[in-house]
C-alpha cells in the first residue's frame, strides 16, 4: 500500500510529464447523489504519454477515466481538452462488444473511411495487430463463443484500429495472464513510440503496472494521493 506520508502535493501530479499537454483537469470533482466519487483532482496529461491510474476498487479510477474521455461531466471543476480534434478511444471494463457479431465484425466497427484510404488498408492493419496478439485464426469466432481473454484483446484492437490520439483503457487485462498483458502493453508502447499514441491505463493490479514503464497516479477514495513513475511503486 502507499504510505500516506508519501502523499504529494497535487501540483506535483504532472511528474514525468512530456512536453505538450493534451488534457488538463482543474479541481475536478464528481458527486453521485450523496457519494463523492472524485474530489478536487488536478492533473495534466501530456501528448504521447503513458499514464497509469491505480487504486483499489471504488477508488474512482473508472470515474476519472470517464471524466478524462468526456463521457462524464464533472460536478465541479474544469476539464480542458487542449487538442479539440483529438480522437479518443475507450476500452470499457464491460468491453461493449456485440455478442452476435464475429470478432472481425466487431473490429470492423472501427473502420472509418475518413482515416483509412480504403478497406484493404484497414484489413491489413487489423491482420497485423491480430498477428501481434496471436488471434488471427480466431477472428471468425463469434463474441458469444469467445473466452474472456479474446474478448479483451478484440476490445483493445477495436480501439486501436480507430487510430486514436488518446486511448483510455479500463482494467484492460483483467482476464489476461501476465504474458498476454505484457503483449498488450508492448503493442501500446510500440504505437506510443511510433505514432505518439497517448495511453491512459486504469488498473488495480500494481504488480502488473510495476513491470511497465510510464507515469503513475494513485487514487484512494476519489482523491489523487500519489504521482510518480510506475517502476518506483
Amino acid at each position, binding site marked *: 500500500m502507499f504510505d500516506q506520508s508519501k502523499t504529494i502535493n497535487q501540483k506535483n501530479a504532472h511528474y514525468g510529464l512530456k512536453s505538450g499537454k493534451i488534457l488538463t483537469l482543474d479541481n475536478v470533482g464528481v458527486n453521485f447523489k450523496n457519494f463523492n466519487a472524485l474530489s478536487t483532482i488536478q492533473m495534466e496529461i501530456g501528448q504521447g504519454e503513458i499514464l497509469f491510474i491505480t487504486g483499489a476498487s471504488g477508488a474512482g479510477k473508472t470515474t476519472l477515466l470517464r471524466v478524462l474521455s468526456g463521457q462524464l461531466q464533472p460536478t465541479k471543476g474544469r476539464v480542458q481538452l487542449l487538442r479539440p480534434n483529438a*480522437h479518443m478511444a475507450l476500452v470499457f471494463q464491460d468491453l461493449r462488444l*456485440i455478442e452476435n*457479431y464475429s470478432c472481425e465484425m466487431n473490429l470492423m*466497427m472501427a*473502420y*472509418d473511411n475518413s482515416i483509412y484510404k480504403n478497406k484493404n488498408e484497414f484489413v491489413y492493419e487489423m491482420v497485423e495487430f491480430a498477428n501481434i496478439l496471436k488471434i488471427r485464426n480466431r477472428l471468425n469466432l463469434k463474441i458469444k463463443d469467445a473466452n474472456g481473454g479474446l474478448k479483451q484483446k478484440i476490445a483493445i484492437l477495436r480501439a486501436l484500429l480507430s487510430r486514436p490520439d488518446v486511448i483510455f483503457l479500463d482494467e484492460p487485462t483483467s482476464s489476461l495472464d501476465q504474458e498476454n498483458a505484457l503483449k498488450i502493453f508492448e503493442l501500446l508502447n510500440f504505437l506510443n513510440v511510433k505514432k505518439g499514441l497517448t495511453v491512459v491505463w486504469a488498473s488495480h493490479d500494481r504488480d502488473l503496472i510495476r513491470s511497465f514503464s510510464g507515469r503513475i497516479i494513485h487514487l484512494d477514495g476519489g482523491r489523487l494521493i500519489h504521482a510518480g513513475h510506475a517502476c518506483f511503486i
Partner: protein
Amino acid sequence: MRAIREHPLKGLSFIFLCGLFILVLLAQNIVNDFLQSKIANKNQYSYFYVLMSSNENHEDVVRKLRDLEEVKQIETLNQEVIAKEVKKILSELDVNVLSPVLDMDYVGFKIIFALKTSIRSQQLVREYVERLVDKKNLILGDIKDNISDRKASEDFLFRKSHFVYPFILLSVISLWLIFFISVKRTLAKIAYLVEQYQRRRQVLLKTLLIGVGSWLVFFIIVFSFIPQVNHLNIIGAALLVLITFIGGFKKDMWES
C-alpha cells in the same frame, strides 16, 4: 443495412411489419366497407328468389332487372341452393310436387333490393319479373324483409363489426412497436459504437431521421395516390412513429 444483414430475421420481419402497418392504415375503408356490405347483405336488404326455366332468356331478364334503380344486386344461385329453395318455397306454398318437377332445369337468382325501397316498389319489381317470364316457367319466392327478421345474434355481430378494424390496427401496431423497439435497441448499440470508434457524431439521430424521412416520403407518395384515406389515421400513425423514433434515446445506449 448492416444491422439487417446481421439480423436477417428480425430485420426482414420489421420491414414486413412496416409494410403491413401501412397496408392496414390504408385499408380502413376497404375493411369497413367489406364488413358492412357482408352484414348489410345479410341483415338490411330485402330480397326475393327467382327460379325460371333455363329455356327462358334469363340473361336478358337479369339485364333488365339490373337497370332498375330499386335493384341493388342480383346473385346467381348454384344448383344446391336452388334445390334447397325450391323445396322451401314449395313447402311454404304447401304444394305437393312429384320428383320430376324438382329435377327441372332451373336457373335461380337472388334479387336484392336497394335500401329504403318501398314495399310497393318491391311488389312492382316482382310483378315486372312475372311479365318478363312466362308464368308456367317461373317460381317466385316471397319478399324477405330482413330488418324485421334480423336475429339478436346478428345484431350483436353487426355491433361487433365496428371493433374489427380497430382490433386489427391495434394488433399490427403492437407487433410493429415490439419489433421497432428491438430493432432500435440494436441500432442504438451499433450507433453508439460507431460514434465511439469512428469520427462521427449523432449517428443514431441521423439514422433515425433518415428512417423518419423515408417513412414520411413513402407515406406522402402512397397516400397521394389513394383519394379515400382516413387522415386521422395517418396523423396518428405519424405521431406514433415520431414518438417511438425520438423517445428513449438515452435508455437504449450502452451507458444506461
